[in-house]
C-alpha cells in the first residue's frame, strides 16, 4: 500500500473478494490494481486467507460422548439410538 490512493480501497476489499461490491467501485479497484502491485498482493492474500479458513473448517459433528450427554441432559435418551 504505497500509493496515496491505496487506503481509500481498504474498506472495500472484503466485499470486492466476495463479489458483492458495486460494479463502479470494482472497476476503480481493478484499474488501481493494474498499477499497484502491493494492493494486488493484499487482495490475493486476503482471498487466500478466507479460502484457508473455509477449507480447514471442521465438519459440524458432535463427538459421540458429547451427543450422549446432551440427549441425557435433555431427557431424550429414548431417541439416542436414532
Amino acid at each position, binding site marked *: 500500500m504505497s500509493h496515496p490512493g491505496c487506503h481509500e480501497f481498504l474498506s472495500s476489499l472484503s466485499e470486492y473478494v466476495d463479489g458483492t461490491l458495486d460494479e463502479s467501485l470494482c472497476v476503480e479497484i481493478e484499474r488501481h490494481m493494474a498499477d499497484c502491485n502491493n494492493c494486488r498482493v493484499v487482495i490475493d492474500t486476503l482471498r487466500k486467507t478466507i479460502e484457508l479458513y473455509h477449507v480447514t473448517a471442521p465438519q459440524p459433528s458432535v463427538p459421540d460422548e458429547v451427543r450422549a*450427554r446432551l440427549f441425557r441432559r435433555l431427557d431424550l435418551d429414548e431417541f439416542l439410538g436414532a
Partner: protein
Amino acid sequence: MSSSTHSSEDFSLAALRAGDRAEFARLVETYSGFIYRLALKLLEEPQDAEDVLQETFIKAYRSLPNFDGRSSLSTWLYRIATNEALMLMRRRKINQISIEEPKETSEDEEQEPLQILDWCCAPEAELMSSEARQVLDQAIDTLPESLRVVFVLRDIEGLSTLETGEVLNLSETAVKTRLSRARLRLREQLTGYFGERMRQQAMEEERE
C-alpha cells in the same frame, strides 16, 4: 457449510410448540453439530462448547411455545447459542488474570496492511500443516469479541450477511464492516506466519 440446508419448514412448528419429544429430538440432531462447532470456534474449549450446546437446547425447549416464527428456526437457535457463548466469554474474561489475556486490539480500527508479501503460492503442505491450522485458530482468538463472532458466523459457519445480522441484531452494513476488519486482521497475522516460513525455507534452500 451452510446452515440453510435445513429450513424451518422441515420441522412441524405446531409439534415443537406443543412439546413433541420426537420432533424436538430431530431438531437437536439436525442443529447440534453446527451449534457445537460455532461454540468451539468462539470459545476454543471443548468443555465450554459442550456447556453452550446443552444450555442452548434447554433454553430453546423452554422458549419454543413462545417462538413466533418471524426468523427461521436455525437463526433463532444460532441467536440463543451465540448469546450463551458470549456470556461465557465475558464471564471467563472477568476471571482471567490480565497478563494471560490475549492481546486484543480495538474493534473499530481498520487494519492497515503492514506486511506485503505474496504467500498465496506457498506449497499446499505448508498452507495446510497442523502448525498452520494452529496459527489460524490462534489468530481468531486475538480478534476482539465483536469481530470474532461475525467472522465465525459468516466465514466458518457460512451464514449469509442477512442471517448474521439477524443473529446478532446488527444491520447488514455493520456485519460487512466488522467482517472486513476481521478478515484484514487475520490476513495480516497469516502473512506474518507464512512470510516467516517462506523466508526460512528460502534460507534452507540456499544452504543446500
